Protein backbone atom coordinates (compact mmCIF):
# COMPACT_ATOMS: atom_id res chain seq x y z
CA UNK A 1 0.00 0.00 0.00
CA UNK A 2 1.29 3.46 -0.89
CA UNK A 3 2.30 5.64 2.05
CA UNK A 4 0.11 8.65 2.78
CA UNK A 5 1.68 11.86 1.51
CA UNK A 6 1.58 15.14 3.50
CA UNK A 7 -0.56 16.61 0.73
CA UNK A 8 -3.05 13.77 1.18
CA UNK A 9 -3.16 14.37 4.95
CA UNK A 10 -3.78 18.07 4.37
CA UNK A 11 -6.55 17.23 1.87
CA UNK A 12 -8.23 14.89 4.37
CA UNK A 13 -7.97 17.53 7.10
CA UNK A 14 -9.67 20.09 4.89
CA UNK A 15 -12.33 17.55 3.98
CA UNK A 16 -12.94 16.78 7.66
CA UNK A 17 -13.43 20.47 8.45
CA UNK A 18 -16.05 20.71 5.72
CA UNK A 19 -17.90 17.68 7.09
CA UNK A 20 -17.72 19.09 10.66
CA UNK A 21 -19.13 22.39 9.42
CA UNK A 22 -21.99 20.79 7.48
CA UNK A 23 -22.91 18.59 10.47
CA UNK A 24 -22.95 21.49 12.94
CA UNK A 25 -24.82 23.82 10.57
CA UNK A 26 -27.56 21.29 9.81
CA UNK A 27 -28.02 20.44 13.48
CA UNK A 28 -28.20 24.11 14.51
CA UNK A 29 -30.79 24.71 11.82
CA UNK A 30 -32.96 21.87 13.10
CA UNK A 31 -32.53 23.04 16.70
CA UNK A 32 -33.48 26.64 16.03
CA UNK A 33 -36.66 25.98 14.10
CA UNK A 34 -39.33 24.12 15.99
CA UNK A 35 -40.90 21.50 13.77
CA UNK A 36 -43.64 19.02 14.49
CA UNK A 37 -42.35 15.72 13.17
CA UNK A 38 -44.03 12.36 13.82
CA UNK A 39 -42.98 10.66 17.04
CA UNK A 40 -43.94 7.27 18.41
CA UNK A 41 -43.58 6.17 22.04
CA UNK A 42 -42.13 2.65 22.33
CA UNK A 43 -43.16 -0.10 24.75
CA UNK A 44 -40.02 0.24 26.91
CA UNK A 45 -40.67 3.86 27.93
CA UNK A 46 -44.32 3.04 28.53
CA UNK A 47 -43.31 0.16 30.82
CA UNK A 48 -41.21 2.49 32.93
CA UNK A 49 -43.94 5.13 33.04
CA UNK A 50 -46.48 2.59 34.29
CA UNK A 51 -44.06 1.21 36.87
CA UNK A 52 -43.69 4.67 38.47
CA UNK A 53 -47.47 4.91 38.74
CA UNK A 54 -47.66 1.56 40.54
CA UNK A 55 -45.38 2.55 43.46
CA UNK A 56 -47.40 2.48 46.71
CA UNK A 57 -47.57 5.42 49.13
CA UNK A 58 -45.72 3.50 51.85
CA UNK A 59 -42.82 2.84 49.49
CA UNK A 60 -39.82 4.88 48.40
CA UNK A 61 -38.36 5.17 44.90
CA UNK A 62 -34.58 4.90 44.71
CA UNK A 63 -33.18 7.16 41.98
CA UNK A 64 -29.65 5.94 41.35
CA UNK A 65 -27.73 8.53 39.35
CA UNK A 66 -24.42 7.36 37.92
CA UNK A 67 -23.42 9.77 35.18
CA UNK A 68 -20.96 12.63 34.86
CA UNK A 69 -20.46 15.72 32.71
CA UNK A 70 -19.58 13.63 29.65
CA UNK A 71 -23.11 12.33 29.10
CA UNK A 72 -25.18 15.32 30.28
CA UNK A 73 -26.68 15.47 26.78
CA UNK A 74 -28.42 12.12 27.30
CA UNK A 75 -28.57 11.53 31.04
CA UNK A 76 -29.77 14.97 32.16
CA UNK A 77 -33.06 14.96 30.20
CA UNK A 78 -33.66 11.38 31.35
CA UNK A 79 -33.15 12.40 34.98
CA UNK A 80 -35.24 15.54 34.54
CA UNK A 81 -38.10 13.54 32.98
CA UNK A 82 -38.10 11.00 35.81
CA UNK A 83 -37.87 13.62 38.57
CA UNK A 84 -40.78 15.60 37.10
CA UNK A 85 -42.88 12.44 36.96
CA UNK A 86 -42.00 11.43 40.53
CA UNK A 87 -42.92 14.89 41.84
CA UNK A 88 -46.17 15.07 39.86
CA UNK A 89 -47.24 11.54 40.82
CA UNK A 90 -46.39 12.31 44.48
CA UNK A 91 -43.89 9.49 44.84
CA UNK A 92 -41.24 9.96 47.53
CA UNK A 93 -37.73 9.38 46.21
CA UNK A 94 -34.10 9.25 47.26
CA UNK A 95 -31.18 10.34 45.07
CA UNK A 96 -28.16 8.06 45.36
CA UNK A 97 -25.03 7.24 43.41
CA UNK A 98 -21.96 5.05 43.32
CA UNK A 99 -20.49 7.77 41.15
CA UNK A 100 -19.33 10.79 43.18
CA UNK A 101 -20.62 13.35 40.69
CA UNK A 102 -24.02 11.98 39.59
CA UNK A 103 -26.03 12.81 42.75
CA UNK A 104 -24.90 16.46 42.53
CA UNK A 105 -26.41 16.80 39.06
CA UNK A 106 -29.68 15.16 40.16
CA UNK A 107 -29.85 17.40 43.24
CA UNK A 108 -29.66 20.51 41.07
CA UNK A 109 -32.44 19.23 38.80
CA UNK A 110 -34.60 18.24 41.78
CA UNK A 111 -34.12 21.65 43.45
CA UNK A 112 -35.15 23.46 40.28
CA UNK A 113 -38.24 21.28 39.78
CA UNK A 114 -39.17 21.32 43.49
CA UNK A 115 -39.24 25.10 43.54
CA UNK A 116 -41.60 25.10 40.57
CA UNK A 117 -43.85 22.30 41.77
CA UNK A 118 -43.86 23.26 45.45
CA UNK A 119 -42.01 20.27 46.86
CA UNK A 120 -39.96 20.17 50.07
CA UNK A 121 -36.55 18.63 50.63
CA UNK A 122 -36.63 16.02 53.37
CA UNK A 123 -40.37 15.50 52.92
CA UNK A 124 -40.83 14.72 49.23
CA UNK A 125 -37.30 13.80 48.36
CA UNK A 126 -33.90 13.26 49.92
CA UNK A 127 -30.31 12.97 48.71
CA UNK A 128 -28.39 10.00 50.13
CA UNK A 129 -25.25 11.16 48.35
CA UNK A 130 -22.41 9.05 47.06
CA UNK A 131 -21.11 5.70 48.36
CA UNK A 132 -18.26 3.68 46.81
CA UNK A 133 -19.82 0.81 44.90
CA UNK A 134 -18.34 -2.28 46.53
CA UNK A 135 -20.62 -5.32 46.35
CA UNK A 136 -20.56 -5.75 50.13
CA UNK A 137 -21.90 -2.19 50.51
CA UNK A 138 -24.88 -3.07 48.28
CA UNK A 139 -25.69 -6.16 50.35
CA UNK A 140 -25.58 -4.02 53.50
CA UNK A 141 -27.75 -1.35 51.88
CA UNK A 142 -30.37 -3.91 50.89
CA UNK A 143 -30.68 -5.11 54.48
CA UNK A 144 -30.37 -1.82 56.35
CA UNK A 145 -30.76 1.50 54.53
CA UNK A 146 -30.40 3.98 57.43
CA UNK A 147 -27.52 1.93 58.89
CA UNK A 148 -25.58 2.10 55.61
CA UNK A 149 -26.42 5.64 54.46
CA UNK A 150 -26.48 7.19 57.97
CA UNK A 151 -26.98 10.87 56.94
CA UNK A 152 -28.46 12.73 54.02
CA UNK A 153 -25.94 14.48 51.82
CA UNK A 154 -27.36 18.04 51.95
CA UNK A 155 -28.29 18.79 55.55
CA UNK A 156 -26.20 16.08 57.21
CA UNK A 157 -29.28 15.06 59.20
CA UNK A 158 -29.72 11.57 60.67
CA UNK A 159 -31.65 9.72 57.95
CA UNK A 160 -34.24 8.31 60.37
CA UNK A 161 -35.31 11.82 61.43
CA UNK A 162 -36.40 12.89 57.91
CA UNK A 163 -40.15 12.55 57.13
CA UNK A 164 -39.39 11.24 53.63
CA UNK A 165 -37.79 8.17 55.21
CA UNK A 166 -40.69 7.15 57.46
CA UNK A 167 -41.21 3.41 57.37
CA UNK A 168 -38.23 2.86 55.03
CA UNK A 169 -35.76 0.36 56.45
CA UNK A 170 -34.60 -2.09 53.81
CA UNK A 171 -34.89 -3.09 50.14
CA UNK A 172 -38.34 -4.48 50.97
CA UNK A 173 -39.60 -0.93 51.41
CA UNK A 174 -38.39 0.23 47.99
CA UNK A 175 -41.19 0.35 45.42
CA UNK A 176 -38.93 0.93 42.41
CA UNK A 177 -35.26 1.39 41.61
CA UNK A 178 -34.47 3.76 38.73
CA UNK A 179 -30.93 3.65 37.42
CA UNK A 180 -29.85 6.57 35.22
CA UNK A 181 -26.37 5.69 34.14
CA UNK A 182 -23.48 5.88 31.73
CA UNK A 183 -21.65 2.92 33.32
CA UNK A 184 -22.41 -0.79 33.73
CA UNK A 185 -24.00 -0.54 37.17
CA UNK A 186 -27.42 -2.02 36.32
CA UNK A 187 -26.49 -5.65 36.95
CA UNK A 188 -25.97 -5.04 40.66
CA UNK A 189 -29.57 -3.89 41.13
CA UNK A 190 -30.85 -6.88 39.16
CA UNK A 191 -28.66 -9.35 41.03
CA UNK A 192 -28.94 -8.22 44.63
CA UNK A 193 -32.23 -6.26 44.76
CA UNK A 194 -34.58 -7.54 42.07
CA UNK A 195 -33.20 -11.09 42.21
CA UNK A 196 -33.37 -11.33 46.01
CA UNK A 197 -36.21 -9.01 47.08
CA UNK A 198 -38.20 -8.76 43.85
CA UNK A 199 -37.85 -4.94 43.74
CA UNK A 200 -38.82 -3.65 40.25
CA UNK A 201 -35.90 -2.02 38.41
CA UNK A 202 -36.17 0.61 35.67
CA UNK A 203 -33.25 1.58 33.47
CA UNK A 204 -32.20 4.81 31.76
CA UNK A 205 -28.84 4.14 30.07
CA UNK A 206 -27.02 6.12 27.40
CA UNK A 207 -27.90 4.89 23.91
CA UNK A 208 -24.57 3.03 23.58
CA UNK A 209 -25.67 0.58 26.26
CA UNK A 210 -29.23 0.09 25.02
CA UNK A 211 -28.86 -3.08 22.88
CA UNK A 212 -27.23 -4.91 25.80
CA UNK A 213 -30.25 -4.25 28.02
CA UNK A 214 -32.73 -6.26 25.95
CA UNK A 215 -31.85 -9.66 27.49
CA UNK A 216 -32.86 -8.22 30.90
CA UNK A 217 -36.04 -6.64 29.56
CA UNK A 218 -37.01 -9.90 27.86
CA UNK A 219 -36.55 -11.86 31.10
CA UNK A 220 -38.66 -9.25 32.97
CA UNK A 221 -35.64 -8.36 35.11
CA UNK A 222 -36.26 -4.74 34.07
CA UNK A 223 -39.72 -3.15 34.02
CA UNK A 224 -38.83 -0.63 31.34
CA UNK A 225 -36.15 1.52 29.82
CA UNK A 226 -35.45 5.02 28.53
CA UNK A 227 -33.13 4.54 25.56
CA UNK A 228 -30.82 7.56 25.64
CA UNK A 229 -32.14 10.91 24.45
CA UNK A 230 -34.91 9.17 22.51
CA UNK A 231 -36.17 7.58 25.73
CA UNK A 232 -36.19 10.99 27.41
CA UNK A 233 -38.18 12.42 24.49
CA UNK A 234 -40.67 9.54 24.71
CA UNK A 235 -41.08 10.16 28.43
CA UNK A 236 -41.54 13.89 27.81
CA UNK A 237 -44.28 12.98 25.36
CA UNK A 238 -45.99 10.73 27.93
CA UNK A 239 -45.77 13.41 30.62
CA UNK A 240 -47.20 16.09 28.37
CA UNK A 241 -50.09 13.87 27.34
CA UNK A 242 -50.98 12.72 30.85
CA UNK A 243 -50.45 15.78 33.04
CA UNK A 244 -52.08 19.14 32.84
CA UNK A 245 -48.90 20.89 33.96
CA UNK A 246 -46.31 22.51 31.73
CA UNK A 247 -43.03 20.57 31.75
CA UNK A 248 -39.75 22.49 31.91
CA UNK A 249 -36.39 21.36 30.64
CA UNK A 250 -32.85 22.64 30.89
CA UNK A 251 -32.36 20.82 27.60
CA UNK A 252 -35.66 19.87 25.93
CA UNK A 253 -35.42 16.30 24.58
CA UNK A 254 -38.23 16.57 22.00
CA UNK A 255 -36.53 19.58 20.33
CA UNK A 256 -33.19 17.76 20.45
CA UNK A 257 -34.60 14.75 18.59
CA UNK A 258 -35.06 16.76 15.38
CA UNK A 259 -31.37 17.71 15.37
CA UNK A 260 -30.40 14.11 16.15
CA UNK A 261 -32.58 13.03 13.22
CA UNK A 262 -30.85 15.24 10.65
CA UNK A 263 -27.45 14.08 11.91
CA UNK A 264 -28.54 10.46 11.41
CA UNK A 265 -29.65 11.23 7.87
CA UNK A 266 -26.34 12.95 7.12
CA UNK A 267 -24.35 9.99 8.50
CA UNK A 268 -26.36 7.49 6.41
CA UNK A 269 -25.83 9.64 3.30
CA UNK A 270 -22.09 9.87 3.99
CA UNK A 271 -21.84 6.08 4.35
CA UNK A 272 -23.61 5.66 1.00
CA UNK A 273 -21.49 8.35 -0.69
CA UNK A 274 -18.25 6.96 0.75
CA UNK A 275 -19.10 3.47 -0.51
CA UNK A 276 -20.19 4.73 -3.93
CA UNK A 277 -16.91 6.61 -4.42
CA UNK A 278 -14.89 3.66 -3.13
CA UNK A 279 -16.49 1.15 -5.47
CA UNK A 280 -16.44 3.38 -8.56
CA UNK A 281 -12.75 4.17 -7.94
CA UNK A 282 -12.11 0.45 -7.45
CA UNK A 283 -13.84 -0.45 -10.69
CA UNK A 284 -11.98 2.25 -12.63
CA UNK A 285 -8.65 0.99 -11.27
CA UNK A 286 -9.59 -2.60 -12.21
CA UNK A 287 -10.52 -1.52 -15.75
CA UNK A 288 -7.20 0.32 -16.15
CA UNK A 289 -5.16 -2.74 -15.18
Amino acid at each position, binding site marked *: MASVTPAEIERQRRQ*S*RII*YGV*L*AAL*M*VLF*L*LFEMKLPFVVGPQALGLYDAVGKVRDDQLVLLSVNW*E*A*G*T*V*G*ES*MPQTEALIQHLFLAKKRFAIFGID*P*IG*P*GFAQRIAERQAERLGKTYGVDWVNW*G*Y*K*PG*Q*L*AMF*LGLARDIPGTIK*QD*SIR*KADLTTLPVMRGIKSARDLGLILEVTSTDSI*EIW*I*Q*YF*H*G*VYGTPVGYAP*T*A*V*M*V*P*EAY*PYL*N*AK*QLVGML*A*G*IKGAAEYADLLERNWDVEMTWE*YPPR*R*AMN*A*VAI*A*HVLIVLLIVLGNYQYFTRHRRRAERT
Partner: protein
Amino acid sequence: MKDLVIVWLAAIATLAIYSILYKENPIYRFFEHVFIGLATGYSIARLWSDVLLPSWWQPMLGGQWYWIFALVVGGMFYTIYLPRYAWMSRLVMTVLMGMAAGIAFKGFATLYIPQLAATFRPIFSPAPPYLLVNNLLIIITVVAVMTYFFFSFEHKSRAVRGTASLGRWLLMIAFGAIFGSTVMARVALLTYRLWFLVHDVPSRGIPHL
Protein backbone atom coordinates in the same frame (compact mmCIF):
# COMPACT_ATOMS: atom_id res chain seq x y z
CA MET B 1 -24.31 38.37 37.69
CA LYS B 2 -23.28 34.88 38.76
CA ASP B 3 -25.36 33.39 35.97
CA LEU B 4 -23.72 35.68 33.41
CA VAL B 5 -20.25 34.62 34.51
CA ILE B 6 -21.28 30.96 34.38
CA VAL B 7 -22.78 31.20 30.88
CA TRP B 8 -19.85 33.06 29.32
CA LEU B 9 -17.24 30.93 31.05
CA ALA B 10 -19.07 27.84 29.79
CA ALA B 11 -19.17 29.27 26.26
CA ILE B 12 -15.42 29.94 26.31
CA ALA B 13 -14.76 26.46 27.71
CA THR B 14 -16.89 24.86 24.98
CA LEU B 15 -15.16 26.74 22.17
CA ALA B 16 -11.74 26.00 23.68
CA ILE B 17 -12.50 22.28 23.52
CA TYR B 18 -13.88 22.53 19.98
CA SER B 19 -10.69 24.28 18.86
CA ILE B 20 -9.17 20.76 18.62
CA LEU B 21 -11.38 20.19 15.57
CA TYR B 22 -9.38 22.80 13.71
CA LYS B 23 -6.03 21.57 14.93
CA GLU B 24 -4.11 20.45 18.02
CA ASN B 25 -3.38 23.46 20.26
CA PRO B 26 -2.24 24.43 23.78
CA ILE B 27 -5.56 26.02 24.77
CA TYR B 28 -7.33 22.67 24.37
CA ARG B 29 -4.67 20.94 26.49
CA PHE B 30 -4.94 23.59 29.20
CA PHE B 31 -8.72 23.25 29.54
CA GLU B 32 -8.47 19.47 29.43
CA HIS B 33 -6.25 19.60 32.52
CA VAL B 34 -8.61 22.02 34.26
CA PHE B 35 -11.40 19.50 33.64
CA ILE B 36 -9.46 16.59 35.17
CA GLY B 37 -8.53 18.77 38.17
CA LEU B 38 -12.13 19.82 38.78
CA ALA B 39 -13.47 16.27 38.47
CA THR B 40 -10.84 15.02 40.93
CA GLY B 41 -11.49 17.86 43.38
CA TYR B 42 -15.23 17.29 43.30
CA SER B 43 -14.77 13.58 43.95
CA ILE B 44 -12.47 14.25 46.92
CA ALA B 45 -15.04 16.57 48.49
CA ARG B 46 -17.87 14.08 48.02
CA LEU B 47 -15.78 11.17 49.29
CA TRP B 48 -15.08 13.03 52.51
CA SER B 49 -18.50 14.51 53.13
CA ASP B 50 -20.67 11.58 51.93
CA VAL B 51 -18.55 8.59 52.95
CA LEU B 52 -15.69 9.12 55.35
CA LEU B 53 -17.32 11.82 57.48
CA PRO B 54 -20.62 10.03 58.28
CA SER B 55 -19.43 6.42 58.21
CA TRP B 56 -15.96 6.72 59.73
CA TRP B 57 -14.96 10.04 61.30
CA GLN B 58 -18.19 10.84 63.17
CA PRO B 59 -18.78 7.31 64.57
CA MET B 60 -15.13 7.23 65.71
CA LEU B 61 -15.37 10.57 67.49
CA GLY B 62 -18.79 9.53 68.79
CA GLY B 63 -17.16 6.83 70.92
CA GLN B 64 -16.59 3.94 68.50
CA TRP B 65 -12.79 4.26 68.77
CA TYR B 66 -12.22 0.91 67.01
CA TRP B 67 -12.98 2.57 63.64
CA ILE B 68 -9.31 3.63 63.71
CA PHE B 69 -8.50 0.08 62.57
CA ALA B 70 -10.24 0.88 59.26
CA LEU B 71 -7.56 3.53 58.69
CA VAL B 72 -4.85 0.96 59.36
CA VAL B 73 -6.41 -1.53 56.93
CA GLY B 74 -6.98 1.26 54.38
CA GLY B 75 -3.36 2.32 54.87
CA MET B 76 -2.25 -1.14 53.75
CA PHE B 77 -3.23 -0.16 50.17
CA TYR B 78 -0.43 2.40 50.19
CA THR B 79 2.32 -0.11 50.95
CA ILE B 80 2.25 -0.68 47.19
CA TYR B 81 4.80 2.16 46.97
CA LEU B 82 7.20 0.45 49.43
CA PRO B 83 8.66 -2.69 47.84
CA ARG B 84 9.47 -4.34 51.20
CA TYR B 85 5.88 -4.01 52.43
CA ALA B 86 4.05 -4.17 49.11
CA TRP B 87 2.71 -7.67 49.83
CA MET B 88 0.35 -6.12 52.39
CA SER B 89 -1.45 -4.14 49.69
CA ARG B 90 -1.95 -7.40 47.84
CA LEU B 91 -3.35 -8.94 51.01
CA VAL B 92 -6.18 -6.36 51.28
CA MET B 93 -6.85 -6.46 47.55
CA THR B 94 -7.17 -10.25 47.42
CA VAL B 95 -9.42 -10.33 50.51
CA LEU B 96 -11.72 -7.77 48.86
CA MET B 97 -11.63 -9.82 45.67
CA GLY B 98 -12.37 -13.00 47.64
CA MET B 99 -15.40 -11.27 49.10
CA ALA B 100 -16.56 -10.19 45.64
CA ALA B 101 -16.05 -13.78 44.45
CA GLY B 102 -18.20 -15.15 47.26
CA ILE B 103 -20.92 -12.63 46.45
CA ALA B 104 -20.64 -13.47 42.73
CA PHE B 105 -22.18 -16.95 43.19
CA LYS B 106 -25.40 -15.36 44.38
CA GLY B 107 -25.25 -12.77 41.59
CA PHE B 108 -24.73 -15.44 38.94
CA ALA B 109 -27.82 -17.31 40.07
CA THR B 110 -30.09 -14.27 40.22
CA LEU B 111 -28.83 -12.76 36.96
CA TYR B 112 -28.71 -15.77 34.64
CA ILE B 113 -31.30 -18.31 35.84
CA PRO B 114 -34.29 -16.08 34.91
CA GLN B 115 -32.66 -15.48 31.52
CA LEU B 116 -32.19 -19.18 30.91
CA ALA B 117 -35.88 -19.70 31.68
CA ALA B 118 -36.82 -16.81 29.39
CA THR B 119 -34.80 -18.29 26.51
CA PHE B 120 -36.63 -21.59 26.29
CA ARG B 121 -40.25 -20.57 25.95
CA PRO B 122 -42.89 -22.84 24.36
CA ILE B 123 -42.85 -23.15 20.58
CA PHE B 124 -46.03 -25.26 20.42
CA SER B 125 -48.90 -23.64 22.30
CA PRO B 126 -52.16 -21.82 21.63
CA ALA B 127 -50.31 -18.46 21.64
CA PRO B 128 -50.41 -16.33 18.44
CA PRO B 129 -48.17 -17.83 15.71
CA TYR B 130 -45.85 -14.80 15.49
CA LEU B 131 -44.95 -15.23 19.18
CA LEU B 132 -44.13 -18.89 18.63
CA VAL B 133 -41.92 -17.97 15.65
CA ASN B 134 -40.12 -15.39 17.80
CA ASN B 135 -39.64 -17.95 20.59
CA LEU B 136 -38.12 -20.37 18.08
CA LEU B 137 -35.88 -17.65 16.61
CA ILE B 138 -34.62 -16.77 20.10
CA ILE B 139 -33.70 -20.39 20.82
CA ILE B 140 -31.94 -20.77 17.44
CA THR B 141 -30.02 -17.49 17.86
CA VAL B 142 -28.85 -18.23 21.40
CA VAL B 143 -27.70 -21.74 20.45
CA ALA B 144 -26.01 -20.57 17.22
CA VAL B 145 -24.12 -17.67 18.81
CA MET B 146 -23.02 -19.81 21.73
CA THR B 147 -21.76 -22.44 19.27
CA TYR B 148 -19.73 -19.75 17.51
CA PHE B 149 -18.06 -18.94 20.83
CA PHE B 150 -17.20 -22.55 21.71
CA PHE B 151 -13.45 -22.59 21.41
CA SER B 152 -12.89 -25.65 23.61
CA PHE B 153 -13.18 -28.02 20.63
CA GLU B 154 -12.43 -27.82 16.94
CA HIS B 155 -15.43 -27.07 14.72
CA LYS B 156 -15.02 -30.23 12.59
CA SER B 157 -18.51 -31.50 11.83
CA ARG B 158 -20.49 -29.68 9.15
CA ALA B 159 -23.46 -29.21 11.49
CA VAL B 160 -21.30 -27.41 14.07
CA ARG B 161 -19.55 -25.33 11.39
CA GLY B 162 -22.90 -24.36 9.87
CA THR B 163 -24.40 -23.43 13.25
CA ALA B 164 -21.33 -21.39 14.19
CA SER B 165 -21.44 -19.59 10.86
CA LEU B 166 -25.13 -18.79 11.39
CA GLY B 167 -24.14 -17.52 14.84
CA ARG B 168 -21.60 -15.14 13.29
CA TRP B 169 -24.21 -13.73 10.91
CA LEU B 170 -26.71 -13.23 13.72
CA LEU B 171 -24.02 -11.55 15.81
CA MET B 172 -23.55 -9.04 12.97
CA ILE B 173 -27.16 -7.93 13.43
CA ALA B 174 -26.46 -7.24 17.11
CA PHE B 175 -23.28 -5.34 16.17
CA GLY B 176 -25.29 -3.30 13.69
CA ALA B 177 -27.78 -2.43 16.43
CA ILE B 178 -24.91 -1.44 18.73
CA PHE B 179 -23.40 0.73 16.00
CA GLY B 180 -26.72 2.45 15.33
CA SER B 181 -27.19 3.14 19.03
CA THR B 182 -23.64 4.44 19.39
CA VAL B 183 -24.21 6.95 16.61
CA MET B 184 -27.32 8.23 18.38
CA ALA B 185 -25.47 8.52 21.70
CA ARG B 186 -22.63 10.57 20.23
CA VAL B 187 -24.92 12.83 18.24
CA ALA B 188 -27.12 13.46 21.31
CA LEU B 189 -24.11 14.74 23.25
CA LEU B 190 -23.24 17.14 20.44
CA THR B 191 -26.85 18.32 20.23
CA TYR B 192 -26.67 19.34 23.89
CA ARG B 193 -23.59 21.50 23.34
CA LEU B 194 -25.06 23.11 20.25
CA TRP B 195 -28.29 23.81 22.14
CA PHE B 196 -26.22 25.55 24.80
CA LEU B 197 -24.42 27.71 22.23
CA VAL B 198 -27.44 28.70 20.15
CA HIS B 199 -30.10 28.83 22.87
CA ASP B 200 -28.63 29.27 26.37
CA VAL B 201 -25.90 31.77 25.49
CA PRO B 202 -28.26 34.25 23.78
CA SER B 203 -31.09 33.76 26.30
CA ARG B 204 -29.04 33.73 29.53
CA GLY B 205 -25.82 35.42 28.51
CA ILE B 206 -27.20 38.73 27.34
CA PRO B 207 -28.60 40.82 30.21
CA HIS B 208 -32.22 41.84 29.69
CA LEU B 209 -32.51 45.57 29.93
